[in-house]
Structures are given as C-alpha cells and as structure tokens.
C-alpha cells in the first residue's frame, strides 16, 4: 500500500501518448497495462514494431556489404572450421611434398645401386668378382696341390683387320694348382709395315717374337666345390690393332 504509482509518462513517452489520467493508482495501472502488452495493436505499437524491423534490416545489410567483407573462403562460413580447413590444407601440402621427395629419392637410389653394388663386390670379393690380393706373398707361400691335375689349352686369335700370325707354341700343358707355369706364344708380322701390340710394343716388318705367359692357378681352386668337375682351362689371347689414340672396344661379357 505504498505511494501512488504513476507509470504513465515514463513508460510510453515515445509513443507520444501522454498520461492524462492521474486518478487513482489502481485505475492507472489498469490503464497502463494494455499499452505495455506486446500484442497491443494500436498505432503506437505498430510504430514501435516498425522501428524494430528497421533496425534488424540495417544490421543484415551491413553484413553483406562487399567492401567490408573478408576474402572468400571456400565452403564454410564459420570462422573456426575455416581455420581448421586451412590447417588441413597446409598439412596435406606438406605431406604431399614429403611423399614426392621420398619417391624421387627412391628412384635415385635405384639408379645409384648398380655401380655401388659393383664397387662393393669388387672390394669384398663377393659374388665371384676377382679380388686383387697380396699376390707376391701368396705365390711365395703357396703349396702345389699335386693330386689335382688340370689341362690348360691355349687359343690365339687376331682381330680381322690385323694381319699377324699369332699362335701358341704348345697346344696344351698340364699343371696343378699352386704351381707357376710358363707357356709361349709366337707372333710374326709378315707384312712390310710395323704394327703395334696391345701394349704398344712395335713389331717390325717380318719380325717374329716369342711371347711368354707366366701364370699359376690359385691353390684355392682345389677347394672350390663349384670347380670339382673342372679339368680343362683354356687360355685365350686376342690381338687387336691399336691405332694412335684409338680406344679398344671392350668385349662384352655374357
């Protein structure tokens, strides 16, 4: 039961309504209430509603103005998912770069493997490649394996364009592994012009020379299981014509 309640002019000043009934409080309240109700459809209420609409429209227009818009991002308009997408794209690009680098690296490695493997075989002697051991010490200390006799046959060839007579002086020789052996070839230059040997030693016209071959079979040959059935070895020499600065063709290895 307090004082007078005069809501009138304070509540609805913008509507332009003025409270003209300062009468009893209860009656004033009764009069105020309808104005304050939202479904009041009088002109004042409509104006208020319009103004509300107007404000909302202005907000949305501001959002779509091109000058103020941020750069176009695909798909999502939500700033959080946009950032995630960016991050994902960057990660994808990095992964792709790494994968491409690995692929290129693998390709390069496959090309490099061939000469590297050959080098490795030569140094370690695996895979049957000949290893240059300490030859002179080995020769000194090697013991002939007397029970394994091997027949060495000799072959001599000349290149088609070379007109030398080149032949072995013995057709065969019997050696054992671990024993040094000597054999001879003979070369004759029947032409009237001097020729060069493969080591660039000249053979004069009509000259005939004896060419010794001093060799041995490694004693390990006798212990090699793959050589058990081998009893014949052929030594073959071929003469090629050597011109000045001419690089000899390397025979193919099958």
């Amino acid at each position: 039961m307090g004082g007078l309640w005069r809501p009138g002019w304070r509540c609805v000043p913008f509507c332009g309504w003025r409270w003209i009934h300062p009468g009893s409080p209860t009656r004033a309240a009764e009069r105020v209430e309808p104005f304050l109700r939202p479904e009041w459809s009088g002109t004042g209420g409509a104006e208020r509603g319009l103004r509300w609409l107007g404000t909302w429209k202005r907000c949305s227009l501001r959002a779509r103005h091109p000058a103020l818009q941020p750069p176009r991002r695909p798909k999502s308009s939500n700033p959080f998912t946009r950032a995630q997408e960016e991050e994902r794209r960057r990660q994808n690009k990095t992964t792709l770069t790494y994968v491409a680098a690995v692929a290129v690296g693998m390709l390069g490695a496959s090309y490099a493997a061939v000469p590297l493997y050959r080098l490795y075989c030569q140094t370690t002697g695996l895979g049957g490649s000949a290893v240059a051991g300490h030859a002179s010490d080995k020769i000194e200390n090697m013991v002939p394996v007397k029970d394994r006799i091997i027949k060495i046959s000799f072959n001599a060839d000349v290149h088609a364009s070379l007109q030398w007579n080149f032949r072995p002086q013995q057709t065969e020789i019997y050696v054992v592994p671990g024993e040094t052996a000597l054999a001879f070839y003979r070369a004759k230059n029947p032409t009237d012009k001097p020729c060069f040997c493969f080591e660039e030693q000249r053979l004069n016209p009509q000259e005939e020379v004896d060419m010794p071959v001093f060799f041995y079979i490694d004693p390990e040959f006798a212990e090699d299981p793959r050589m058990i059935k081998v009893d014949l070895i052929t030594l073959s020499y071929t003469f090629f014509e050597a011109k000045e600065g001419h690089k000899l063709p390397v025979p193919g290895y099958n």
Partner: protein
Amino acid sequence: MSTAMNFGTKSFQPRPPDKGSFPLDHLGECKSFKEKFMKCLHNNNFENALCRKESKEYLECRMERKLMLQEPLEKLGFGDLTSGKSEAKK
C-alpha cells in the same frame, strides 16, 4: 664375346696381369732357353711340373738381360728349386 653395345649387361673390365707384360725379346736373346724348355715339354708329354727347372732358367735369362724386372725366384714360385740349389751348394 660380342662387340655390340649392350647397355644392360655387365661390361667386362680387363685387368692387366699382376706383374705386367713381358717386353718383347726382339733380339731373341733368351731363345735358346726357350727352346730347351719347349723340348722338355715335348719330351715329358707337356707336364709342367717336370720342366720347372727350364722355366726357371728362362726367367733368369730374361732378368739378366733386362727383359724382366729383377725379382727373387721365391716370389715367382720357384722356392723349392732355389732352396734345393742352395742346399746342393752347401
């Protein structure tokens, strides 16, 4: 042996002999020793083991006449022959 250019096959790398190649004996200085050796081979049915003395003598001839680098005979695999000779000398 093929002289065609095969890029895929393993190319044969010729290796020079360990001690190099003998210089040509143009003057035939050691020819007599060679003949002795060949005769020995013929007589012994081409068995190398029986003619090692002759081959040693041939190589000694070459070394004397500078047709071959001087090298102790033991390193050439004639250790048994040289030790035998030194024993005989004693």
